[in-house]
Structures are given as structure tokens and as C-alpha cells.
């Protein structure tokens, strides 16, 4: 009994430290937006520890043509610090809720130059070991048609038409057959009555 207890405690002690390390950060994979619109980039994390008061979020941005990333947002010590010198000055707003593990930012008035990769890194002391997560932003002039909408509609329309033609054909055949059947029944009925009448008179 004691040995089982000892074994269980050793196993638990072995598991828990591993679980308390490792923060997992979630952002989207890709975001599409129209020129001039606003977009909310979401970032949240999973951690085995309670959300500490020293939780930090930081966003960095790497433009499509650039080699390095620049930092555009940092939340620490309970206060957000937005970009006031870089490409997003006066266009960035913090709309997250760190108490709820949400570190989302709002980008306003998008332009083609904002195409690029946004990386969110969150730390929840003492849980600090984790991999930052990136989301790509694509800015369009007008919303593109979903791939294959025209293709799918052509295929669907033609197949539907063919199916309709086949159904109508078989339905017509069924109607004609029924009409022929009714006619032949009435003919037989008249002939039978006529014969009986003539026989009765005789």
C-alpha cells in the first residue's frame, strides 16, 4: 500500500513540472481584409498556470519585402504600449483582455503596405517557455471570388439540368402509359356493355 502511494507520488511529481512548462499561443493562420477597413488580430494562449499579474503580450510585424521584424505592441505591468513611431502609429489599438488571456489588437485603415506577417508572443510567468505564433495579413482591393465558385456553379447547373430532363422524360412516359391504360380499360368496358345490350334485346 505504501509502495503504491510512493510510486503514485513520484509519477505525479514527474508529470507536473513538465506540464507547468510550455505556453501555447494561438493566433489565426491567415487574415483577409479590404483596403481602408479595420481588422482585429486575435491572440490568446493556453497555460497550466493561473494567469499571473505579470502576463505580457508583444506583437511584432515583418513586412512582405523586409527581412527583419519590428516590434509594434507590448503589454506589460498591466498597461498596453502601442506603436507611436513606426508604420502603425495612430492606427493601432489594444482591444484585448489580459485577464481573460486575450491579447488582440485592432488595426485601422489598412493599406497595401500592411501586407505581411504579424507575430504574437505571450508570457505568463513562471510559464515562459513557448513558441510565438504568426498570422499573415492579406489586403485586397475587392473581395476575391472564392476559388471555384464559377466552376462549381457551371457543373451544378448542367448536371441539374440533365437530371431534370431525365426525370421529365420518365414522368412523360409514365403519364402516356397511364393514359393508354385508361383508354384501353374504357374501350373494353364499352364493348362489353354493347354486347350485353344487343344480347338482351334478342
Amino acid at each position, binding site marked *: 500500500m505504501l509502495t503504491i502511494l510512493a510510486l503514485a507520488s513520484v509519477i505525479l511529481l514527474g508529470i507536473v513540472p513538465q506540464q507547468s512548462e510550455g505556453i501555447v499561443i494561438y493566433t489565426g493562420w491567415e487574415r483577409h481584409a479590404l483596403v481602408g477597413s479595420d481588422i482585429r488580430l486575435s491572440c490568446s494562449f493556453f497555460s497550466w498556470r493561473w494567469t499571473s499579474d505579470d502576463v505580457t503580450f508583444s506583437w511584432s510585424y515583418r513586412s512582405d519585402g523586409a527581412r527583419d521584424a519590428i516590434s509594434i505592441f507590448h503589454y506589460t505591468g498591466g498597461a498596453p504600449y502601442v506603436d507611436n513611431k513606426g508604420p502603425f502609429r495612430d492606427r493601432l489599438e489594444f482591444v484585448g483582455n489580459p485577464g481573460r488571456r486575450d491579447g488582440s489588437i485592432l488595426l485601422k485603415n489598412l493599406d497595401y503596405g500592411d501586407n505581411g506577417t504579424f507575430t504574437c508572443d505571450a508570457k505568463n510567468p513562471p510559464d515562459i517557455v513557448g513558441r510565438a505564433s504568426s498570422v499573415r495579413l492579406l489586403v485586397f482591393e475587392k473581395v476575391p471570388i472564392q476559388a471555384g465558385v*464559377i466552376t462549381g456553379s457551371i457543373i451544378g447547373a448542367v448536371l441539374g439540368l*440533365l437530371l431534370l430532363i431525365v426525370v421529365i422524360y420518365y414522368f412523360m412516359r409514365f403519364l402516356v402509359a397511364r393514359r393508354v391504360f385508361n383508354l384501353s380499360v374504357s374501350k373494353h368496358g364499352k364493348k362489353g356493355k354493347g354486347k350485353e345490350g344487343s344480347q338482351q334485346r334478342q
Partner: protein
Amino acid sequence: MLVILTFILLFHVISAILLFISTINNAWWVASAPGGSVIYTDLWYSCNVTCLPVKNSASTDAVYLQAVQATMILSTILCCVGFFVFILQLFRLKQGERFVFTAIIQLLAGLCVMIGASIYTAEREGFTEESLRKGGYGSSYVLAWISFPMTVVSGLMYLVLRKRK
């Protein structure tokens, strides 16, 4: 009878296979890029060593490309459906009747291939991007044109064939 049956079935299956290869393999157009590399492109991806989706294929600029995709897929579907309808009619038809339904489906498939290949030939310049304009037609394009007479001949054969015991 059995010999004729196997021959017709084989013909149908071969035309279906040609349609599948032509639709799926991305080699309708072989472009020689300025870097010296050869790029196989259309209908779905542009491939060299890596495959990228055909540029702009999801916008209204590439309406004709989407139409070609649609007709090629339609013809493949119709060919497969015709195969099953032929098997069905083989067991359901009375003696001496022709396989009209199967013939109609096969002829429609041939019509779709013709429409698709013709649209591609006529409008290719419109939806190919600048760097890929120079080049020649690829193997899938040739296969598509070959499968057109094959499906038409197959359909005509079904029209002529009568069910025997």
C-alpha cells in the same frame, strides 16, 4: 458477342482514363520561363519543382479558366456515369433494343470535352500571366483533344449496338 462487349467496354474505360489524366495532370501549357526553367501549368497548378496555384484563378479575370475546369470535370463525370448506365442497361434492356441512354451520355461527354478544349485554345492568352505566355501546348492538352473523338466514337458505337442474348 462477348468479344464486341469487351472491346466496347475497353474503349469506354480508356476514354475515361484519358479524361481523368487530362483533367488532373497540370500540363496543358508548357512555358519556358526567362530563368531557363520549364514550367508546366494549367488547369489547376503551375509546377516546376514546387507547385503554386495558377495566379488569379479565384477572380473574375480567370472566368474562362474556370469554365474549362468545369467542362473538363463535367465530361469526366458524364463518362463515368455513362459507364454505370451502360452496365445497368445491359441487364435491363429487352432483346434487340439499342443503348440510347448510354449513347446520349457519352456524346454529351464528348461535347463537353470539345467545348472545354476549344475555350482553352481561344482564350488562353487572357488568363495566363505575362511570364508564362511563351511556350507550347502540353501533354494534357493533347490528351483532351484525343479523348474528344474517342468519346464521340464510343457514343456512336453504343447507338449502333443492339442487345443480343
